[in-house]
């Protein structure tokens, strides 16, 4: 899967959590822009894991602050 395809599917998964209706981009920041709290992030992570049939270990999450960083992590975990 291309990085672009991953990004497109990732945007679709994030959309239900995008309460302010921001235009999503690779630079969109989960805490600062989307204002997701830690519990909401966990729901989103579970959805991402199931979308790509991967596990995203919790210890990885502190380094994933933007949508682009998550897309890169998905690509890497997907191998």
């Amino acid at each position, binding site marked *: 899967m291309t990085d672009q395809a991953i990004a497109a599917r990732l945007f679709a998964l994030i959309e239900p959590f995008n309460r302010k209706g921001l235009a999503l981009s690779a630079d969109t920041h989960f805490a600062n822009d989307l204002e997701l*709290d*830690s*519990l*909401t992030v*966990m*729901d989103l*992570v*579970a959805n991402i*894991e*199931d979308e790509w*049939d*991967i*596990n995203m*270990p*919790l*210890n990885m999450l502190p380094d994933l602050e933007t949508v682009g960083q998550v897309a890169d992590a998905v690509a890497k975990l997907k191998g």
Partner: protein
Amino acid sequence: MHDLLSKFDGFIAEHSGLLATGVRDPFGVVMERVLSPTRAIINGRDTMLVGTYNYMGMTFDPDVIAAGKQALEDYGAGSTGSRVLNGTFTPHLGVENALKEFYGTTSAIVFSTGYQANLGMVSTLAGKGDYIILDADSHASIYDGCKLSNAEVVRFRHNNVADLDKRLGRLPADAGKLVVLEGVYSMLGDIAPLQELVAVAKRHGAMVLVDEAHAMGFFGQHGRGVYEELGLEADVDFVVGTFSKSVGTVGGFAVSNHPKFEILRLLCNPYRFTASLPPAVAATAEASVRKLMVADEKRANLWAVSRALHGGLKAAGFQMATETPESAIIAVLLPDQISTVAMWHQLLEHGIYCNMSRPPATPAGIFLLRCSLSAAHTLDDVTEIVSRFVAARASLG
């Protein structure tokens, strides 16, 4: 200088905003005097305690108090150090022996709190290259144990068997895996489908740890917990528990039949690098654990009053967190923080102390008034509690 506490400004504003509405601080209740397991003086008022974890009502048991007094005389006020470095006191062995009898296990290790028991067990069992698979609604002590370990940490959706199966299936078959579960989840008071969860864990070659903190004394034939009630004693590798709930004092423990279990004492930082329990606390815990082995009447009464409270509140129109009373935690759902705190405050003004719980202690978006009863409550107490809930609601208009 950058003020490190400035990152908490949002919380400070939220908390002051809450108090500015004229309510008492739900996070700052003071018990001025404790009259019994079911009553205390709060704000000068005789208050019914409906929010302690004193499930079996052991805090004022005369045998428990006597054991503590004796040990205080015999061993002094404190342990003044770690058991590994500064020595074990006879009461530490006494309570560990009582736990082995209570759980029918070959080993028992006592920690200084339940939090430290989970912190120590989870972080020491799972090391670098291992995997911890935990329920999303796990207690903070389990999450913190994960942080302290060097393992990879994977979460599954709360009580969801298929979700656990899927996540275990994505892991390397030969990797070390620890699945961490709780018998009773302490916020909503719901119990875990342990038979199915444990079966899935075993099928994937994982070891299983179950925290039975909120079940000890009144689930299963011997009061060991939900895992005993569901017939899983042969399949659960480690059980974690606490003295601060049904046992009525403070401390934590883990029990196991694993032949190598005892070595954890020498490797586990939350055990070896902290002071052990004061001998008097260990002695009260031993006396209490031994009495809980034969506390059939207390257990029956705890279930009777818990069921009556759930039924009474439900009949009065309150929205309950669980359809049926699954445990001794009876939680009422409210829509948001403001209405929850307002009702909590009115209850306290009506002489009822229960717990106000909010995220992140609760799952996202859930606000609760959490009630937990004690075996020392009577059915008449329950009638009174329900009528005060109704009166408190009415006073809010």
